């Protein structure tokens, strides 16, 4: 009896199930077995090597590069901890950093309820985020009014600058993108061709050339006395670039709405503006929300290019710290710095892409009959 029960457990219990699973998924054939072993070897090598670099051989304490100059040293973590303020806020003066933190809190207060599907009041939150918050945020961060000291944009940098460029880029490119998408579908030939021309030209050139154009040519386009803040030039370039891509995403949404909606709106006697604002755009935008989030992820990654025109976003300021701060020179400084920047970017982008997938599933689920 006991033997029977025992062998039954051996055949169907958790150990048996695991063995079966292993056999089916990892070792199902000779080829697969070899592949599995190779993969295991790769994973082992990578994990052990990384753990050694990041934890076991790493330097955790020190006040300058000489601490990390030991032979066979791993990551130089003091470099990151000492420069954390610089990486997060750029050269924004220390006593004023609470203003940036307050801006973050205000932004999250609007974003988090907006992102959770079940929370009501999405329209008000959107209006808050798109109109009220930018003004408050701008005043807080730039200063110059009330009692807040003015902080020139040359001092903005690090992760803060990355977020500024990305969010201003996407918010500013929204209205332009919508107009371009609508214009592209217009029946008026000139409107359509102007929009197509703009979209195709901007999508066909690299962002680097658009940034060069904005930073080098924009001052030439203006009357001599008017000078343009460097950050503003970059923002204009990024916004125009993003608008063209966003226009294509929104166009997909406009095409995805059944024709009947347009016709019904016309039949009801709504003007073009009323039709678009009340009937078409809400549906179109809802359709392409995952596409919009993906655009934002791409824009977030593209903000790192502003280092080429001399702005110090997270990547730019890490790179500058690696190459100009002689105090921290050591063989592992660069690797540690790049790894840190990479992790920060990865956390942001991966979270956003997970959220986008979640949204996609949720919204598609609603549409399935």
């Amino acid at each position, binding site marked *: 009896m006991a033997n029977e029960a025992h062998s039954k457990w051996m055949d169907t219990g958790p150990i048996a199930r695991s063995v079966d699973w292993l056999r089916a998924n990892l070792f199902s054939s000779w080829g697969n077995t070899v592949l599995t072993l190779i993969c295991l070897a790769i994973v082992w090598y990578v994990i052990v090597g990384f753990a050694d670099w990041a934890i076991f051989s790493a330097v955790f304490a020190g006040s300058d590069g000489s601490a990390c100059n030991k032979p066979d040293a791993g990551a130089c973590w003091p470099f990151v901890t000492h420069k954390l303020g610089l990486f997060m806020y750029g*050269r924004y003066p220390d006593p004023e950093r609470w203003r940036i933190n307050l801006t973050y809190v205000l932004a999250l207060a609007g974003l988090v309820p907006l992102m959770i599907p079940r929370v009501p009041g999405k329209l008000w939150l959107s209006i808050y985020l798109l109109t009220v918050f930018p003004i408050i945020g701008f005043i807080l961060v730039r200063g110059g009014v009330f009692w807040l000291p003015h902080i*020139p944009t*040359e001092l903005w940098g690090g992760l803060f600058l990355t977020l500024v460029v990305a969010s201003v880029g996407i918010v500013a490119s929204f209205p332009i993108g919508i107009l371009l998408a609508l214009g592209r579908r217009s029946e008026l030939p000139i409107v359509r061709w102007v929009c197509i021309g703009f979209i195709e030209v901007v999508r066909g050139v690299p962002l680097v050339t658009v940034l060069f154009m904005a930073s080098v040519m924009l*001052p*030439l386009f203006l*009357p001599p006395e008017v000078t343009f803040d460097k950050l503003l030039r970059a923002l204009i370039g990024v916004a125009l670039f993003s608008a063209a891509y966003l226009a294509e995403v929104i166009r997909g949404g406009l095409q995805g709405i059944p024709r009947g909606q347009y016709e019904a709106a016309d039949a009801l006697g709504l003007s073009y503006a009323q039709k678009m604002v009340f009937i078409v755009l809400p549906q179109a935008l809802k359709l392409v929300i995952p596409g919009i989030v993906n655009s934002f992820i791409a824009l977030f990654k593209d903000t790192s290019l502003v280092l080429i025109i*001399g702005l110090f976003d997270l990547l730019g300021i890490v790179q*500058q710290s690696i190459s100009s701060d002689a105090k921290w*020179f050591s*063989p592992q400084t660069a690797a540690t710095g790049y790894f840190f920047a990479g992790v920060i970017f990865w956390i942001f982008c991966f979270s956003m892409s997970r959220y986008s997938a979640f949204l996609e599933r949720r919204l598609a689920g609603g549409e399935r009959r």
Partner: protein
Amino acid sequence: MRHATQILTAAALGLIAVAIASQAQSSTLDAVKKRGDLRCGVNIGLAGFSAPDDKGEWTGLDVDFCRAVASAIFKDPTKVKFVPLSAKERFTALQSGEIDLLSRNTTWTMSRGTQQGLAFVGVTYYDGQGFLVKKSLDLKSVAQLAGASICMQTGTTNELNVADYFRTRSLTYNPVVFEKNEEAVSAFNLGRCDAYTTDASGLYAQRIKLADPSAYVVLSEIISKEPLGPAVRQGDDQWANLVQWTLFAWLNAEGLGVTQENVDEKINSGNPEIRRLLGTEGEYGLGIGLDNDWAYQIVKNVGNYGQSFERNVGKGSRLNIARDQNKLWKDGGLHYAPPIR
């Protein structure tokens, strides 16, 4: 229809008129005074010439010159806004009006002074292009670098000079160019190239950043003339004169022995040259739109040229560059400033 066309034509003409009207220039000095600070273009970070320290304060020889101009105008050396510029954007920034004065270790060449709308007003540092190599290579002249990889920054006269040097001697080399100086130094540090070339002053400045500065040596052969000096926009003579005579006053102060420490007593000196310099006699500030004590303010707030040199790039600094050709003419160097009279 007709009404629409008329209105639109009028609007277009109006726009054109506005565009033309807005081309009127105002004097740079007036604009600077109205704004309340001097916008000075400087290097993003070149030790000894213009670099921000940990607290964000700018120091360096070029920085001191900007402060000298600001002292002359505002009697306050802190009324300067420093605009860090890369090699790529330095000229456009000056041309477009973003900055009033470019004090960024820029070489005075004919094409820059005539074809690009810039006006150089003098030389703050007589430099030349040199090469930084490993001591262990035991090189004596630049020609021995045939076949080597040479790191340098793009968009500079350095690139052109190296090409000329090797081509005229029918030697080959491998150029490795980077946008930023730091990247070039970084690559040189990692061994990507055998030599790093830039103006000799820059070599000393960058050497202190290397992993082991004592393992590198600056070759004694200098392959070009690189007179570094401040630049202003063409077309504003009064402003150009102001900047030029700030430089000359700086040099003359050292020649007359007026320092930051003794300038207050030297006001009452009997030497007529010192009296004219510091404004006790004469009305030399009038011609450049400033008060007569403009030179006194310069020396009081920034010191004379020699003091600034030693403090930033000379014996009092990590660079420890010898004055050599940057001495005054009477000491055997090249600096010769016209008299203030």
